[in-house]
């Protein structure tokens, strides 16, 4: 869902970050060049390169398509607890034991080449996902049966409630009459996409491409007529272009975010807490992890000794927010946060006394240099961070200072993204700063399944994706598996006991040390267009790279007009 890391990666490309930031803050002149129409929205997705034509909504390198050109059946809003909204589907229903999913489709929808959309297209798409391993990122194994032109039934061998958001919400439907002739859809760039979505591709150039409103869209032609995607060299160029009024929507860091709206006339900024920042630890000695962090007491001590308030202001421009040690988002998932947790949210101020008590209780003794040690082994660990990710680097440096006071030594080790990823996946690390990304719907289940289930991990030396901590706890595994058997639509009462079990366990074991929830910050031109998501009307996750959320925003925008 989140392409957090994508824009982060863009950041490494920015050269002379601080200096350009200073320049950007001080400039005000007119834009030199690009002509702008009042009904053309200009967006920058954070990609630090020229566009390579690719409108295949299932390709990892698609540049656009999912949501805007191709539509899924339903829209699952990841930003707040909404009911799924119907797009190409109008309703869906599970049978009693969760093995049969009946979907009703919208009638009267046409593909942009004039052919009618029907159940055969849906069945074709689902079959294609099942049979194309490269597309089947969620292990879909259901069989699809067309009942009539507007009804489809998907059958599973085991309860598959938790597959629904991915299948219904993140799997754009493609036209059978075109795609059935494509030999290998995984390597086709779909240069001229035919879809049912609100927008159509109208022009492609490596430095910019444009999509335009679909006059025959089933919900009526969108008021926003054109969207131009421009290529810039990274976040710094993005911030500069924003300052000059050359782009209307971007998601990424900008200098001096606190005064953004005062410095940028007509623009607004929105910050949505979504990615949970953690110090990932290689926690499981049974799977080959080594180092002081394999002792839960050390992880707990670090958890209590961090001064999150200082961290937030020094590293994150105060855009981060409180995190829950049970890893349910304190805001969006408030109802899921367990009452059994010792701390509902991690304290924003440090508690050195408690950190020391935990370490001393576990048999650690402070040495002459002030660092705790046990059996001659010092509590000294290296923490991995990607070179160039300035906010994370500031964060680990700050923590390293804070933890020294609590008798824990961190050695900051910066290396390239490739190297950090490699170390993290293969388990050759002690600590690494990273974030846990959310799943396909507003349900903490997905974070648990991906990051805490032993099925998602491997012994050190093999690539574990994404349970980097090598966490394995049979109680947690069982609770996650039980959750998959329950229909989320039946209400929370039946599910909450399992959430309580998971959260209590992971708070105790703490394989990922919770830091804070990172804010995803987007800036948009509210003078030129109205209808943007706001804190009170968060109808989609407002990140321009978040598909299909971006299409909901596009469909909702209205040119202010002149």
């Amino acid at each position: 869902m989140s392409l957090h890391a994508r824009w982060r990666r863009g950041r490494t490309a920015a050269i002379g970050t601080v200096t350009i930031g200073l320049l950007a803050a001080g400039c005000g002149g007119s834009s030199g060049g690009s002509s702008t129409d009042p009904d053309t929205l200009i967006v920058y997705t954070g990609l630090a390169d020229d566009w390579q034509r690719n409108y295949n909504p299932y390709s990892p390198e698609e540049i656009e398509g999912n949501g805007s050109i191709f539509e899924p059946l339903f829209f699952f809003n990841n930003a707040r607890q909404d009911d799924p909204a119907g797009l190409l589907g109008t309703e869906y229903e599970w049978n009693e034991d969760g093995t049969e999913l009946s979907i009703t489709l919208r009638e009267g929808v046409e593909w942009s080449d004039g052919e009618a959309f029907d159940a055969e297209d849906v069945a074709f798409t689902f079959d294609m996902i099942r049979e194309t391993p490269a597309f089947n990122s969620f292990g879909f194994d259901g069989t699809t049966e067309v009942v009539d032109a507007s009804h489809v039934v998907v059958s599973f061998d085991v309860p598959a409630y938790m597959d629904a958001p991915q299948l219904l919400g993140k799997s754009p439907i493609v036209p059978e009459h075109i795609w059935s002739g494509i030999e290998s859809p995984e390597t086709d760039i779909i240069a001229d996409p035919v879809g049912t979505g609100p927008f159509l591709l109208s022009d492609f150039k490596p430095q910019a491409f444009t999509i335009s409103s679909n006059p025959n869209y089933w919900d009526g032609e969108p008021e926003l007529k054109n969207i131009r995607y421009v290529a810039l060299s990274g976040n710094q160029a993005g911030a500069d272009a924003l300052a000059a009024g050359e782009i209307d929507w971007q998601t990424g860091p900008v200098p001096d975010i606190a005064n953004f709206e005062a410095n940028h006339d007509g623009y607004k900024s929105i910050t949505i807490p979504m990615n949970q920042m953690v110090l990932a630890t290689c926690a499981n000695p049974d799977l080959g992890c080594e180092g002081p962090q394999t002792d839960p007491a050390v992880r707990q001590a670090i958890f209590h000794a961090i001064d999150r308030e200082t961290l937030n202001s020094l590293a994150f421009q105060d855009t981060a927010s409180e995190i829950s040690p049970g890893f349910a988002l304190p805001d969006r998932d408030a109802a899921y946060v367990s009452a059994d947790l010792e701390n509902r949210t991690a304290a924003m101020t440090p508690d050195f006394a408690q950190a020391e008590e935990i370490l001393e209780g576990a048999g650690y003794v402070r040495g002459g240099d002030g660092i705790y040690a046990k059996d001659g082994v010092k509590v000294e660990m290296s923490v991995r961070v990607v070179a160039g990710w300035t906010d994370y680097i500031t964060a680990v440096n700050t923590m390293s200072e804070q933890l020294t006071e609590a008798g824990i030594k961190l050695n900051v080790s910066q290396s390239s993204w490739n190297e950090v990823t490699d170390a993290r996946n293969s388990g050759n690390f002690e600590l690494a700063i990273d974030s846990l990304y959310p799943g396909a719907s507003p349900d903490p289940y997905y974070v648990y399944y991906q990051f805490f289930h032993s099925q998602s991990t491997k012994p050190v030396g093999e690539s574990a994706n994404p349970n980097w901590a090598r966490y394995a706890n049979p109680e947690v595994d069982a609770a996650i598996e039980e959750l998959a058997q329950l229909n989320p639509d039946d209400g929370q009462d039946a599910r909450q006991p399992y959430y309580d079990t998971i959260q209590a366990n992971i708070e105790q074991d703490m394989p990922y040390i919770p830091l804070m929830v990172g804010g995803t910050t987007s800036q948009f031109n509210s003078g030129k267009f109205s209808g943007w998501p706001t804190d009170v009307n968060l109808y989609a996750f407002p990140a321009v790279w978040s598909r299909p959320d971006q299409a909901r925003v596009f469909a909702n925008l209205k040119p202010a007009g002149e």
Partner: protein
Amino acid sequence: MRYYARKLGFYLVALWAALTLNFFIPRMMPGNPVDALLGKLQQRGGQVGPEVRESYEVLLGGNSGEPLWNQYFSYLGNLARGELGIATSAFPAQVTDVIGQSLLWTIGLVGIATLLSFVLGVVLGTVVGWKRGSRLDSLVPATTVLSAVPYFWLALIFVLIFATNLGWFPRHHGYDVALSTGWNFEFISSVIEHGTLPALTIVVSSIGGWLLGMRNMMVSTISEDYILTAQAKGLRNSRIMTRYAARNAVLPSVAGFAISLGFVVSGSIITEQVFSYPGIGSQLLQAVQNSDYALMQGIFLVITVAVLAANLVVDLLYGVIDPRTRVEN
């Protein structure tokens, strides 16, 4: 003739060595392209099971546990057929397409800027060297200071002054993205408008080196006896300056120019970053960040061949300009 045959032989061996290094160096880097690609897929929400991984390994064609030697020979074979493989950072685009899309822009911008800076530097250097000790000498420290300023800083200052504050030039891109691409006046003039400022920054920051080198060679050439002879014969000063002094003084600069011409294709990563200019430098940066071996190899190949070719041409040319190099003892 033996001189040329020997040169060609030497370049063939150099090419082979470069190709071999080109194969092994990316493989010594940490990370792998499959992980980079899967990382992107994963962040969209989804489990990446072993099947997905296998399927991408097959699609990307590498990393299948094949012995390195086999990979090496199939790499050489593919090169001979002109196949560079799939660029994983732009999957499923072909490396040749990715390079083709950006190479012309880089050659256009950096090539013209390099040529301009060489010509200007050499001409100015000739004049300054000829009139050594005059006020013109102050050009030397002035231009070398500009060369010594870190390039990104200079470029940013230029952007601030000429693009942001004065608004004379556009800030981003290689052309006006609202126009349609094509060989029409409107588009071409937007290309020139967008390229001027980046080219200017390259010229300003590199001219000092040429000027200084040329000026110093001129000064030492002028003290040669044949200049004195020429003056004694009563030749015109302008003729002595160009035909006698400059022709001899320019030789080292020509060699340097050959090398910098070769590097034109590698682009100027920083220029492209600062100006969001389409070009091969930013592709290279992306390739490195995404462990995209195929694209890296493709770009290195183009750079290597360009550097070798430029050197070969100059080597051959050198034989013409300076007959002494052809003589064997």
